[in-house]
């Protein structure tokens, strides 16, 4: 029996996997972290986080984050009072990236959990969020952000450059200190039905920054880039390939994943096709979950596909759904691999 990481590599390389990769199992390297991936470092630790039901806080970029008790996650606040960037042409006066210059002793505190990872079984996986696009709209709100692409394109490009440079410096520190094998980076690029930007606009603003960022990780020995984006982005897959994404995590069913596998399998793999919206519901049942997992496994097959809940980390909104999906995938493995 292959280890979890061997089985994943066989799957995405078109080799001989002996079962379906079961959701996030190959990246589940830190039992102490909420999503099972490495999430702690001095920079992340210094950025205030809001807890459920607690008063809003400002994160390291000055973005106000609120988490009312009755909602499932924290959100940036974008009323006029709280937007960091109110005028994109003046962003340099108000945007200040978090400091990166922490002493080595601070980094060393996080190294025991890296050393504890069983690298034969799973990958040392670092969880990253937000992405470049998300950082932009966190700073100014989605509406202002998307209009700025038309009205002040150069200012947007300059801000993207600033964010990317900071992320590259951060990436260097992560590689120097943790030698990660996998980066799982969040950046949602669309809604359920369409990408936010046209492919041309996406290419103009984001392709090169992402090529630099992900290319740097690859130069430093990172084996796999897993990009989380739980939206429709089938029209952006050629750019994902160009920016060296190995696995697109979060591909929702509207993307027609089986067609994407036929078209791009071997160049990129697809992880998802089990939408939270379809199975992670108040009225979920094991039967409902199995129905969706069966469809995904049968339609997409054994290569270049990892059946997975579409959310960007292990777990589910409703207790038991993630484990129910895992059980259903095991069942499909027994049926389709024997």
């Amino acid at each position, binding site marked *: 029996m292959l280890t979890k990481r061997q089985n994943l590599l066989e799957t995405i390389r078109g080799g001989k996997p002996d079962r379906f990769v079961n959701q996030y199992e190959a990246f589940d390297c830190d039992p102490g972290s909420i999503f099972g991936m490495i999430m702690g470092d001095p920079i992340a630790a210094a950025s205030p986080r809001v807890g459920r039901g607690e008063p809003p806080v400002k994160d390291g970029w000055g973005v106000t984050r*609120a988490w*009312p008790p*009755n*909602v*499932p996650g924290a*959100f940036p606040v*974008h009323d006029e009072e709280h937007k960091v960037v109110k005028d994109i042409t003046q962003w340099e006066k108000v945007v200040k990236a978090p400091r990166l210059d922490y002493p080595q002793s601070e980094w060393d505190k996080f190294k025991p959990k890296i050393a504890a990872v069983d690298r034969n079984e799973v990958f040392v996986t670092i969880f990253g969020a937000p992405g470049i696009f998300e950082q932009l709209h966190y700073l100014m709100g*989605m*509406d202002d952000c*998307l*209009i700025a*692409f*038309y*009205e002040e394109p150069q200012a947007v490009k300059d801000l993207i450059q600033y964010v990317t440079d900071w992320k590259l410096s951060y990436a260097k520190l992560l590689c120097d200190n943790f030698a990660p094998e996998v980066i799982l980076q969040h950046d949602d690029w669309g*809604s*359920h*039905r*369409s*990408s*936010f*930007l*046209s492919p041309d*606009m996406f290419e103009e603003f984001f392709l090169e920054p992402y090529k630099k960022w992900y290319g740097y990780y690859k130069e430093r020995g990172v084996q796999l880039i897993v990009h989380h984006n739980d939206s429709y982005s089938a029209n952006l897959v050629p750019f994902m390939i160009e920016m060296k994404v190995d696995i697109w995590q979060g591909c929702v069913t509207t993307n027609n994943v089986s067609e994407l596998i036929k078209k791009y399998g071997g160049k990129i793999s697809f992880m998802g096709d089990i939408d*939270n*919206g379809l199975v*992670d*519901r*108040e009225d979920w049942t094991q039967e409902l979950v199995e129905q969706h997992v069966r469809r995904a496994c049968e339609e997409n097959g054994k290569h270049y596909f990892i059946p997975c809940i579409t959310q960007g980390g292990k777990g589910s*909104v*409703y207790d038991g759904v993630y484990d129910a999906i895992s059980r259903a995938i095991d069942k499909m493995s027994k049926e389709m691999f024997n």
Partner: protein
Amino acid sequence: MAKIDEVKEQVIIGKTKMVPGLVQAALDEGSAAKDILQAMIDGMKVVGDRFSAGEIYVPEMLIAAKAMAKGVEVLKPSLSGEASTSLGTCVIGTVEGDLHDIGKNLVNMMIGSAGFDMVDIGVDQAPDKFIEAIKNNKNVKLVACSALLTTTLPALKKTVDAIRESGLQGFKIIVGGAPVTAQFAEEIGADAYAPDAGSAAEKAKEIVAA
């Protein structure tokens, strides 16, 4: 090309700087304010249709709505002297427990651009806030409720139930959001469902006119 036609064309392609001047030129040319407004509404219908068809994306829709808003600013003094062209008031909000506002804002813009007076009550709004807004605003013809999370689908049902049980009448209810389906909308007793902002505007006009 008549200036009024140019107004429509420039709204469609989102020329925020050109539209105000063209609106003024159309007025100077003798076009009635309500006709110019209708030309912009027609332009936004083209934008909505193109968005629904996947031909354009969110920024193009936002910039077109902004261009129209700038044109309406120029028209306002002239419109006040003419008969109302409003299709009525639309109360819009995201239901309790949900902080998503992008989809709601887009629908707000597109329904507003179709000729409704919009009352946006914001995100994470309890059923009584929708009811309060219906009571406190004149000529409410439409209530639009948004939910983006599977966790807030029950809140969407609760909102529709509460509005129905309030006894208030004279308006239709439209619902939408990523996890919402036409079947779910029907199950919870909404009058209509729209899968995206472009079709929401068309559906809004259709059900209010019915």
